[in-house]
């Protein structure tokens, strides 16, 4: 306590020094006078009395110095002094300071920005109660890694499990819910959830209440919980709106709660209608995502064992279904998912950029300390200890780093916004990506570490030469000698090696992007407009109603000006595959219990192939003649033909889809068409079968939600209004959702690759510029140091061209060495990129050669300026310089 009080007083004493100094002087003065008087009284001569008093005191200045040490806090005072002096030095060389701070700011800023993203996506706990107890459950079986559940599995789990506080199933609607009755009909994104969903998350509505268990039972009136945004936008933020009724997909739902403003789950969900599950008659289809909250003390393994047991029991109930277990995954890991790998690689790349920046500033410091040798020599001659000099230099570095950190933070702040704008939907948990306390902490840490890193070597180097030597050596700035030049060289080599690694990564990712964009999707994507139609079940209850709506729509749209063809499909290329289904070939049934091969099944309109321009290889396409009476026909793609009909003609073969049913309908394959990408441009071809939508087993259920595809003669945007008015002329309650051109869809489908390529390119550009500045600085410094030597050479008859060549060779040899080391490292490191590459190998020769050539070219260009200066040295001037 006393110590703390004393310490605080001492801290306070760092201020208002002059008054305290005066008091101290007065006290010592009065002490001396009293002593002198006493001495005089004891009979000394005035001179002797004075001398003795001084001797006895032990020196006025020493006393004062010790007193000051006790008064203030010497460490802090020294630090303040160093700060003061450093600031003066930095202000005196504004060029150096600006370059150093900017370099560091870019390095630190880029790191902070990427770390903010990593932090938001991977590190922050999920914004739900006890997120580490939150798990997702999947069915796991042969050929199925993380499969959804069906009603049978979920209901059994909900009823029999003992390891979760709650479990909930949910089903995000990729299409959204059609909201009618509040303005013009609109599609609102949402997710249907079972009654315990919000208990699993541990989230309470801010208004109203969560679902009650009985609301999840079939037959009970429907209820919905809405987002804060929905409440503001459609319910006028009226508290009385809770309890009111809204129409979704034509059904009436009671609004029972409003969620907190900052609540989010998945992307853009505004509506959370109750999901009422009926006991199942069969195990498939599997369409429910499942989450649970672990009871305290229950491990994931234990939970998985318990849930798997239930999955086995369900199978006993449905012996025809596949044998599956249940796996349990921490929801947090699941959400970060694929993004983690790419983000960690980006973090690595940006770390390299920071290292380059640090090396660069270290190089600058080193060059500068070369010309400050005399200053240090004089200071140490005046009694500054080596430790004090190193502290001084480190303080300078730390100030630079701190400035760089602050500016870097500003850069990071801007970059995070840019990243978020650049990459909508590329990253999960985007709402949580912010520059927060943890990010600030890391930035501070980076700044301090970099300050020490780039400050220490120059500080050690510039203080270890004997005082006399530096003072004696040359009247010009003392040369920093051979070893310093070697250190410079090593730093440049390191910079080039680091830059090469980052550039290679960028090169590989650019190649990946261009490869992806040049993939043939299997159809002609230009001049195609797509939109989503969702027919409300109560007005389109039966298949004939659905079919007649679509056929009338085609009739009206097809004959409009500018429209070349129109059709519908359930799955949309390049990456919206909705459904896969097992199939059985007549006469070639597999052993019972063996899972049948699953292929993509796509209900389409008759003109679908013509609209998208998918080529027909054999047989025929669908026609209106297949409609009534239904002919039960299928068209398959080439991949399916090759894979499942390797030795006989598929056309004419009869197959059945779904669970094998001896009494079921058989479909005849009538044609083979080209492969189309439905799972992403980078994915392998997928065996696919097309079925006329009106003859599909899914009509009318899934057929109520179909994508319209439209081929236009000119710009596809122009036909949107034609489609809209045609739809409204048939049914004025129908909204058009997800209106996109096919080109946009293609562009968006490679957004992840583009995001990575763009970021990597920015880092590579930074690395390149920094490396260029680095080698330029070192060569310019070397030339200026050697002006004298070059002057002598020229005077002795050296050819100017030779001098140019010497300097260039020196620079180039550093760059070549750096490139060589970098290439070796990049060959090793590019393996980590493998998962992000497409159509290019990590060891791609072209990329490596291009990058190496680019770096060497840049190095030569950067060396050319100082080399020319060396060539132009006037021997007389250079010699007179001494």
């Amino acid at each position: 306590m006393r110590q703390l009080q004393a310490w605080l007083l001492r801290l306070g004493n760092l201020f208002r020094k002059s008054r305290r100094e005066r008091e101290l002087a007065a006290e010592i003065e009065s002490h001396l006078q009293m002593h002198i008087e006493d001495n005089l009284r004891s009979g000394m001569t005035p001179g002797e009395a004075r001398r003795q008093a001084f001797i006895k005191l032990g020196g006025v200045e020493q006393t004062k110095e010790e007193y000051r040490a006790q008064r203030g806090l010497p460490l802090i005072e020294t630090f303040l002094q160093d700060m003061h002096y450093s600031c003066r030095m930095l202000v005196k060389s504004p060029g150096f300071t600006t370059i150093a701070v900017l370099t560091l700011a870019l390095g630190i800023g880029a790191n902070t920005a990427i770390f903010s993203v990593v932090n938001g996506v991977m590190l922050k706990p999920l914004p739900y109660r006890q997120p580490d107890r939150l798990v997702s459950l999947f069915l796991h079986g042969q050929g199925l890694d993380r499969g959804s559940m069906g009603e049978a599995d979920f209901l059994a789990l909900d009823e029999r499990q003992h390891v979760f506080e709650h479990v909930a199933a949910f089903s995000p609607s990729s299409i959204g819910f059609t909201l009618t009755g509040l303005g013009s009909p609109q599609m609102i994104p949402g997710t249907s959830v079972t009654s315990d969903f919000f208990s699993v998350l541990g989230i309470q509505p801010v208004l109203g209440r969560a679902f009650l268990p009985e609301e999840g039972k079939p037959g009970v009136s429907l209820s919905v919980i809405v987002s804060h945004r929905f409440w503001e936008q459609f319910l006028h933020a009226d508290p009385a709106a809770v309890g009111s009724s809204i129409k979704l997909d034509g059904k009436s739902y009671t609004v029972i709660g409003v969620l907190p403003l900052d609540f989010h789950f998945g992307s853009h969900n505004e509506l959370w209608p109750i999901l009422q599950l009926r006991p199942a008659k069969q195990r498939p289809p599997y369409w429910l995502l499942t989450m649970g909250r672990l009871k305290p003390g229950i491990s994931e393994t234990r939970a998985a064992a318990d849930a798997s047991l239930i999955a086995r029991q369900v199978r006993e109930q449905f012996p025809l279904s596949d044998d599956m277990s249940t796996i349990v995954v921490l929801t947090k890991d699941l959400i970060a998912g694929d993004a983690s790998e790419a983000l960690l690689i980006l973090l690595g790349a940006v770390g390299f950029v920071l290292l380059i920046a640090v090396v660069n500033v270290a190089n600058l410091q080193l060059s500068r300390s070369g010309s400050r040798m005399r200053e240090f020599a004089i200071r140490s001659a005046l009694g500054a200890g080596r430790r004090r000099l190193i502290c001084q230099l480190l303080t300078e570095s730390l100030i630079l780093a701190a400035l760089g950190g602050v500016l870097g933070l500003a850069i990071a702040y801007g970059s995070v916004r840019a990243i978020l704008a650049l990459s909508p939907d590329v990253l999960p948990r985007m709402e949580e990506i912010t520059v927060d306390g943890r990010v600030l902490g890391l930035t501070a840490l980076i700044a301090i570490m970099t300050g020490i890193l780039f400050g220490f070597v120059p500080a050690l180097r510039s203080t270890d030469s004997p005082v006399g030597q530096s003072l004696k050596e040359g009247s010009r700035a003392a040369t920093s000698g051979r070893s310093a030049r070697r250190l410079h060289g090593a730093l440049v080599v390191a910079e080039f090696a680091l830059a090469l690694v980052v550039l290679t990564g960028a090169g590989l990712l650019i190649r990946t992007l261009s490869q992806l964009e040049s993939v043939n999707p299997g159809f002609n994507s230009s001049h195609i407009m797509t939109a989503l139609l969702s027919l409300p079940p109560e007005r389109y209850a039966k298949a004939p109603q659905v079919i007649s709506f679509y056929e009338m729509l085609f009739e009206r749209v097809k004959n409009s000006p500018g429209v070349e063809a129109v059709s519908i499909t359930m799955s949309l290329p390049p990456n919206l595959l909705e459904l896969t289904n097992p199939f059985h070939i007549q006469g070639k049934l597999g052993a019972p219990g063996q899972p049948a091969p699953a292929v993509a099944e796509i209900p389409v309109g008759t003109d679908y192939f013509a609209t998208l321009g998918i080529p027909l290889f054999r047989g025929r396409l669908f026609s209106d003649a297949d409609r009534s009476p239904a002919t039960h026909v299928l068209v398959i793609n080439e991949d399916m033909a090759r894979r499942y009909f390797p030795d006989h003609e598929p056309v004419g073969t009869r197959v059945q889809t779904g669970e094998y049913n001896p009494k079921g309908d058989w479909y005849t394959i009538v044609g083979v068409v080209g492969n189309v990408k439905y799972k992403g441009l980078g994915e392998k071809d997928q065996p696919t079968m097309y079925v006329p939508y009106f003859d599909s087993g899914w009509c009318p259920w899934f057929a109520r939600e179909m994508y319209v595809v439209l081929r236009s003669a000119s710009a596809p945007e122009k036909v949107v209004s034609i489609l809209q008015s045609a739809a409204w002329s048939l049914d004025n309650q129908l909204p058009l959702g997800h209106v996109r051109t096919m080109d946009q869809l293609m562009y968006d489908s490679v957004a992840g690759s583009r995001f990575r390529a763009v970021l990597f390119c920015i880092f590579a550009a930074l690395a390149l510029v920094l490396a260029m500045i680095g080698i330029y600085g070192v060569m310019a410094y070397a030339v200026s140091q050697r002006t004298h030597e070059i002057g002598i050479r020229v005077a002795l008859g050296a050819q100017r061209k030779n001098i140019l060549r010497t300097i260039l060779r020196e620079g180039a040899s550093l760059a070549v060495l750096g490139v060589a080391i970098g290439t070796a490292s990049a060959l090793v490191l590019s393996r980590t990129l493998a998962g992000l590459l497409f159509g290019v190998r990590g060891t791609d020769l072209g990329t490596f050669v291009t990058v190496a050539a680019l770096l060497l070219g840049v190095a030569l260009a950067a060396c050319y300026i100082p080399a020319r200066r060396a060539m132009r040295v006037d021997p007389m001037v250079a010699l007179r310089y001494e």
Partner: protein
Amino acid sequence: MGDKKDVWQGTLALMVLKTLQALGPLHGYGIARRIEQTSGDLLAVNYGTLYPALLKLEQEGYISSEWGTSDTNRKAKYYKLTRAGRKQLEKEAREWEQTTEILARFLAPGKESA
């Protein structure tokens, strides 16, 4: 070197507190003379070292200071014991006595073997 100084600083502080208790408010020079007189020639230390010690005691709240006038009509800074200082003196004196007693017993020749 540091250790010796600490011992000196510790004992010096105790001497200062005792002096102020015995003589009442006193200036630095007076305290120095008094300590020197009491200890004889055993403590031939620079007077200057007294001032950081006084400052330290003041920072710790054991003594307080104010400017006053000396017998010889000279302005001087007078130090006096605070309540906390009095307590501290008692405590330190007791500790010191204990220490010396232990050391004395320890150093007394031959008692145990006798």
